[in-house]
């Protein structure tokens, strides 16, 4: 293993001149940039911009559910287009792109003490391919028939049949866009993995990496294994649609006419989709787990509790998430005996996940909790994630899923656990790292307003929604008012949810305004406003320049969580500060009090 006692100059001697591409013009510096930090900002801006579209779509669909007929341009076809595009944008083009393309690009090299990603040119191509995927997706609004309304799961055969809006070209553009996304993501993902494995600075052993990097790293490995399933599913459906093959198309009668397809299996698509789709949940969740661990530790001024357990929990969750996919298919008509296996694996995954929750809250115990905006969002994440994770125990337990599947309970569950919870982490992370990215703090008053409305509003939207599902109200209903067993009060609840959704959506405008306003008017932050230990806060310049660390790379002497170390002068010791107090191995193994 690397000997961390070497002097800092040893490293510089090994790499006398870092091989970085130096931009010569404005275009190559800010547009076709190969600097991971610029690419990160490009990814994040694009993701947030397309996310605003998804936000507006959620307003429109909620308007329809609460006030049917009020917005006359929303017919059934438009409604299904809205839910489809809202879901796909949020899951893929916003959250996945923002966590991995945004935070991954910004934080991996900085946190590991690297000058950049190992393949900067491929990294640049990754962003531009992603942008192309977004543009193709948006283009489907401008084609005859509009975007597809097949639901974000795109289940065949309905996805390519008539009676689904976007049957003309929307579905083709959706599939092409997903294929482009996977291609672009693969280029970025290879970069993240190789940089983590090969680009760490001297002394940065794997077990000294911040949990943020662990979360993003394992999520990327998972994405590399899961996205190919989506890729082939998209290609096969394109063939079915354009070439008349029958991968997913059995013999069927459409509008009284027997189609030329024969012998395909719609269930095959569902297996491929969820082989991607379930790991995707954790591709979104693991970076959030990692980031929130670092937010809690930094703002509670306390080391993350059980670091090694946290790392192994991430790894185990990542591995297990590949053998649980069919819990999305308990009532799909697959062999019912699969239910036993997938219920067991699904509920087992609750154990490492629960460990993570315990360790977050135990990190708060006897901490020195600063209720800064990042910490507020981290606390809100714990509440919503625990809530959403626990309702997952209903849906994962095969027989309990039978009445709840395809109802509003599912909608409430997955929004809470993979919508609200990770997005609260994204907000917390932006409040946390914005000072490093811009050199200025975000405005605190606006942050508090944004926090309270978003957190409480989102909880009030999705908590009561579970009960509509328990009652039996199905999801994906353009109109649900006339369902026989629904009391009239259910409609009042729908109106309440819609009003909350409008308010929470509006609060995001405050956030966007804060992001833009603070670039010029925010309080100057200095290099390390949160007094954090990790390397990105120890850069010579803020914002860090191309190459990140000046002439010499930092050398790492300790793990990322030396907060409030007994006997230390300050309540944090940066990772690159030499010294042997406290005596540290990779992650300290001794319990408190067993060593001086």
């Amino acid at each position, binding site marked *: 293993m690397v000997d961390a006692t070497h002097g800092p100059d040893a490293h510089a001697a090994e790499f006398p001149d870092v091989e970085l591409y130096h931009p010569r013009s404005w275009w190559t510096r800010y547009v076709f940039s190969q600097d991971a930090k610029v690419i990160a900002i490009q990814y994040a801006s694009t993701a947030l911009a397309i996310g605003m579209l998804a936000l507006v779509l959620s307003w429109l669909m909620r308007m329809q559910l609460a006030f049917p007929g009020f917005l006359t341009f929303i017919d059934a076809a438009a409604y*299904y287009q809205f839910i489809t595009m809202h879901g796909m944008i949020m899951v893929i083009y916003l959250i996945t792109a923002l966590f991995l393309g945004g935070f991954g690009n910004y934080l991996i090299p900085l946190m590991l003490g690297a000058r950049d990603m190992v393949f900067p040119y491929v990294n640049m191509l990754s962003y531009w391919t992603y942008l192309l995927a977004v543009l193709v997706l948006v283009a489907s609004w401008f084609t005859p028939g509009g975007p597809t309304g097949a639901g974000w799961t795109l289940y065949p055969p*309905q996805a390519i*049949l008539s009676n689904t809006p976007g049957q003309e070209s929307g579905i083709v553009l959706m599939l092409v866009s997903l294929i482009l996304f996977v291609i672009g993501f693969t280029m970025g993902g290879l970069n993240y993995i190789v940089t983590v494995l090969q680009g760490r600075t001297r002394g940065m052993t794997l077990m000294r990496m911040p949990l943020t990097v662990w979360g993003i790293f394992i999520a990327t490995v998972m994405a590399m294994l899961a996205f190919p399933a989506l890729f082939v599913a998209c290609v096969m459906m394109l063939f079915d649609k354009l070439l008349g093959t029958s991968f997913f198309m059995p013999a*069927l*009668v459409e509008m009284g006419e*027997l189609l030329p397809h024969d012998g395909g299996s*719609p269930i095959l698509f569902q297996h491929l989709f969820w082989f991607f789709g379930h790991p995707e949940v954790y591709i979104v969740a693991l970076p959030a787990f990692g980031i929130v661990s670092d937010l809690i530790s930094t703002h509670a*001024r*306390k*080391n993350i*509790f*059980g*670091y090694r*357990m946290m790392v192994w929990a991430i790894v185990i969750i990542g591995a297990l998430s590949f053998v649980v996919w069919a819990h999305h298919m308990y*009532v799909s*008509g697959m062999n*019912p*005996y699969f*239910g*036993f296996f997938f*219920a*067991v694996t699904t*509920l*087992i995954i609750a*154990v490492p996940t*629960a460990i993570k929750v*315990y360790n977050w809250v135990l990190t*708060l115990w*006897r*901490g*020195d*909790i600063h*209720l800064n905006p990042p910490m507020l969002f981290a606390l809100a994440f*714990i*509440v919503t994630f*625990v*809530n959403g994770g626990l309702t997952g125990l*209903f849906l994962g*337990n*095969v*027989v*309990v899923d*039978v*009445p709840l*599947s*395809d109802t509003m309970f599912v909608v409430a569950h997955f929004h809470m656990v993979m919508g609200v919870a990770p997005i609260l982490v994204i907000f917390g992370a932006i409040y946390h790292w914005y000072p490093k990215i811009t050199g200025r703090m975000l405005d605190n008053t606006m942050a508090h307003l944004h926090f309270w409305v978003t957190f409480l509003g989102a909880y009030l939207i999705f908590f*009561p929604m579970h009960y*509509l599902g*328990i009652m039996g109200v*199905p999801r994906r209903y*353009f109109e649900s008012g006339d*369902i026989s*067993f629904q009391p009239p*009060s*259910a409609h009042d609840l729908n109106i309440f949810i819609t009003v909350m959704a409008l308010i929470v959506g509006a609060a995001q405008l405050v956030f966007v305004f804060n992001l833009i306003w603070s670039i010029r008017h925010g309080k100057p932050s200095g290099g390390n406003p949160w007094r954090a230990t990790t390397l990105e806060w120890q850069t010579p310049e803020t914002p860090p320049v191309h190459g990140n660390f000046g002439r010499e790379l930092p050398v790492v002497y300790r793990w990322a969580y030396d*907060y409030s*170390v007994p006997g230390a002068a300050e309540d944090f010791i940066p990772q690159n500060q030499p010294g042997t107090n406290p005596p540290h191995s990779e992650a300290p*193994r001794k*319990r*408190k009090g067993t060593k001086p």
Partner: protein
Amino acid sequence: MVVAVVLVLIVVGSVAFHFLSPWWWTPIASNWGYIDNTIIITFWITGAVFAAVVLFVAYCVWRFRHKDGQKADYEPENKRLENWLMGLTAVGVAAMLIPGLFVWGQFITVPAEATEAEVVGAQWQWSYRLPGADGKLGLSDTRLVAADNPYGIKPDDPNGHDDVLIEADYLHLPIDKPVKMLLRSVDTLHDFYVAEFRSKMDMIPGAVTYFWFTPTRTGQFEVLCAELCGTGHPYMRGGVVVDTQEDYDAWLAGQSTYAQLYAPEVLKTATID
């Protein structure tokens, strides 16, 4: 302080909402009360965990919020505590999983005395087929579907001739008799869902899926489609009427068979037998 109070209010409010809100499941009309019981077990366990975690966070925020001169503890790990928590979690998970798997075993084991009833989904209506006097459904194939054969029944299969067809009308079932619902679709995915029966299953073109239940309460129940099947999805409604045996027999006597409806020449040979 505010944060801690809000966290406590979230727990209190959520529990109060659970017990006081008017929105709860429909009165059950099938034998799957076991499923409701498993949901109740899950509610108690998960509710307790939610309350415990959030209240613990609230306490920490109140007790350990930053004050001047305060310093956090330094405690990297505590193996004993971590193992205890892991063990307790595993016990809680098992307490939900084991009854769940037990009930699932019942759910997928159709009793031998169950009669069959077929549901055929097509955009956007439900049709039903009962096996008729011989107790057997005739073979079917989507490729045979036509205006004079909407179910795609094989005309040369004698088992199909006496099949009772219920098109664009409510299905009737006798109370307290287990029934195996055979689910079929001629166009796209649908899902036969009656909230009061607590059971549902997708129907897939090209395959026959199933579930079973025993109706336990007479009355009329709405059938919903629970799998997105195009723009008419929310309007794909139907009904199931659970009758006493006498009412059921009277209703069944008034229904028509495949031979009567679509194959008059077959009817002739069928009556000769």
